[in-house]
């Protein structure tokens, strides 16, 4: 088992004829993900890597039964693409697009809630359930099937952590890159609950970063609802206040959202926090004893 994506995932790629869309559609397909369709307005009837392309999400869903969509369209078109997927009945949308205006996302959210559509991203690397499905831009070869669930606000740092887990023989059930934008879809609380409910997940790695209070809220949620062991890492411990470190979310404003506060919040509820990334495998081994 795993969460969110698995062998039943029927994936649609929105923006499949673009540079990133076509490249990653091929990567996901060769990993073994069931990529059933692509959408690119005006390119309907063509194929990419043997994947049929449709003009609209509705037509693609009707023809292929797609239940999950990944979005590679340019940032200013991303909100519309998310809405189109939701309207067509897609259950899970993963928005890779980077640089989506925040108010576009604010306007999208109530519709997704009404339709019951789950969203991951935008500005995220996607997710993977090793040996089942890769839905994103993550490098499939570094993952190993196992029983540690991982969730993160960042991309390459996630790969770094996964690589260290895999090198130490610690496999993963599902790894979710949630993205670092101010307004995003599924976050720590929802994903923690899913890992808690997933029988294949025995321990959880949470990778946070400075800015906002998502980690503090996660700590409280773990205290209230999670019985499985959780270990954490917080990036940005040395970041100066007021500077945006690449991610929109990674900014410290006036004494809130600092790494120190987040680490304290976790330690208070018994979550071990790694001081440096290389401590994660040992902490997980200890936690799973």
């Amino acid at each position, binding site marked *: 088992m795993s969460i969110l994506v698995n062998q039943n995932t029927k994936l649609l790629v929105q923006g499949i004829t673009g540079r990133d869309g076509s490249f990653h559609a091929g990567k996901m397909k060769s990993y073994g993900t069931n990529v059933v369709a692509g959408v690119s307005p005006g390119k309907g009837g063509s194929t990419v890597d043997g994947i049929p392309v449709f003009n609209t999400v509705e037509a693609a869903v009707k023809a292929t039964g797609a239940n999950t969509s990944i979005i590679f369209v340019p940032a200013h078109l991303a909100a519309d693409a998310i809405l189109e997927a939701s309207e067509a009945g897609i259950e899970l949308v993963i928005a890779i697009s980077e640089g989506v205006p925040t108010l576009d996302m604010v306007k999208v959210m109530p519709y997704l809630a009404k339709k019951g559509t789950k969203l991951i991203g935008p500005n995220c690397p996607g997710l993977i359930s090793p040996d089942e499905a890769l839905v994103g831009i993550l490098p499939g070869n570094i993952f190993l099937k196992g029983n540690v669930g991982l969730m993160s606000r960042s991309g390459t740092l996630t790969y770094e952590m996964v690589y260290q887990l895999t090198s130490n023989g610690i496999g993963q059930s599902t790894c979710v890159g949630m993205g670092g934008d101010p307004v995003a879809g599924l976050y720590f609380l929802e994903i923690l609950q899913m890992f808690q409910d997933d029988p294949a997940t025995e321990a959880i790695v949470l990778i946070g970063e400075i800015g906002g209070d998502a980690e503090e809220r996660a700590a409280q949620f773990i205290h209230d609802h999670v019985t499985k062991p959780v270990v954490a890492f917080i*990036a940005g411990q040395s970041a100066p206040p007021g500077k945006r470190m*690449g991610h929109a979310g990674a900014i410290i404003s006036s004494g809130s959202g600092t790494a120190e506060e987040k680490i304290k919040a976790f330690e208070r509820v018994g979550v071990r926090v790694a001081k440096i990334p290389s401590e994660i495998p040992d902490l997980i081994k200890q936690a799973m004893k």
Partner: protein
Amino acid sequence: MKIHEYQAKEIFSRYRIPVTNEVVCYTVEEAVAAAEKLGLPVVVKAQVLAGGRGKAGGVKLARTKQEVPEIAGKILGMDIKGYTVEKVLVAQGVKFTHEFYVGMTIDRNSKSVIFMASSEGGVEIEEVAKENPDAIHKFVIDPTLGMTPFLARKIAFALFSDFNLVKQGADIFQKLYRIFMDTDSSLVEINPLVTTEDGKLLALDGKMNFDDNALFRQSEIEALNEPTVDELKEIDAKEKGLTYIRLDGSIGCMVNGAGLAMATLDLIKYFGGEPANFLDIGGSSNPQKVIDAMNLILSDKNVKVVMINIFGGITRCDDVARGLVVALEKIKVEVPIVVRLSGTNSKEGLEILKQANLPIVETMSQAAQKAIELCTKN
């Protein structure tokens, strides 16, 4: 992106939110003329893109004709948090009876715009939040409804007991919401919003920040941008596909990915070093990008050593290594370099670096320690 107080208030006035009579001045002479036109007393306010102007002595009341040139002369050219004051706002002095705070921002938890209002205006809202959080009323705005008249009234009733003020407040709050949405703001504040002696509401100060991701459709706002020297460097980097932020230390860093870059800086600090910059080169092995990145790092004369930390995911380590070798052949780097490559095809990548005589290390921690060691030697 940030704009000045006077620019924010120009936008407020365009939406017919009442603001003080005021003139932007670049010289003492202009300030004197403005005071004559507005009538005394006037408030002279430094216009810089930093908070805490009052505490820094950048906001002063001029009661007499003589005080205007004295005060304007002192404030113009003053340094506030690294910004030089190049212009002041000369505003009509207003007698007020009470100061309020109103502001809007994006709330990550409700994924909506949130309206904040407090009767404790005139001080920094962060201080109120720390010392008396109950004094701040918060209202989540449903994006499908927007700022409805009833919500605007509800907010106004939380601040004012006089119905005349409630009506004026509700009108201002609806306009403020329209400004927020129309301009893709990330923050709009009136602090203080005051009640005058004749029972009117007036915006005495204004602050607006904008969503950088939306500037492509906000050309009027973008035209107001006044980047600093450091920010110009950051913008130039962005155009080359790099995210660069200058810091104060001496260990230059080149990393792929924002999260990993942050963790790299943390690691340097953890082992007792000081990073010179944050630099995310994104996911590409293009030699030109490495050359651009290296030039950017070395443009900071404090840099004594460069640490390169690359995790090969989709981009393979052998490609990155080849890019590095090509780049380092093209530019002369006089400071020592430490390279750490890990991930996909790392063995092949490390072999290429070894043949090119580049110093390599296995892990992030080793790279940080080695960089610090080289830094203290130099």
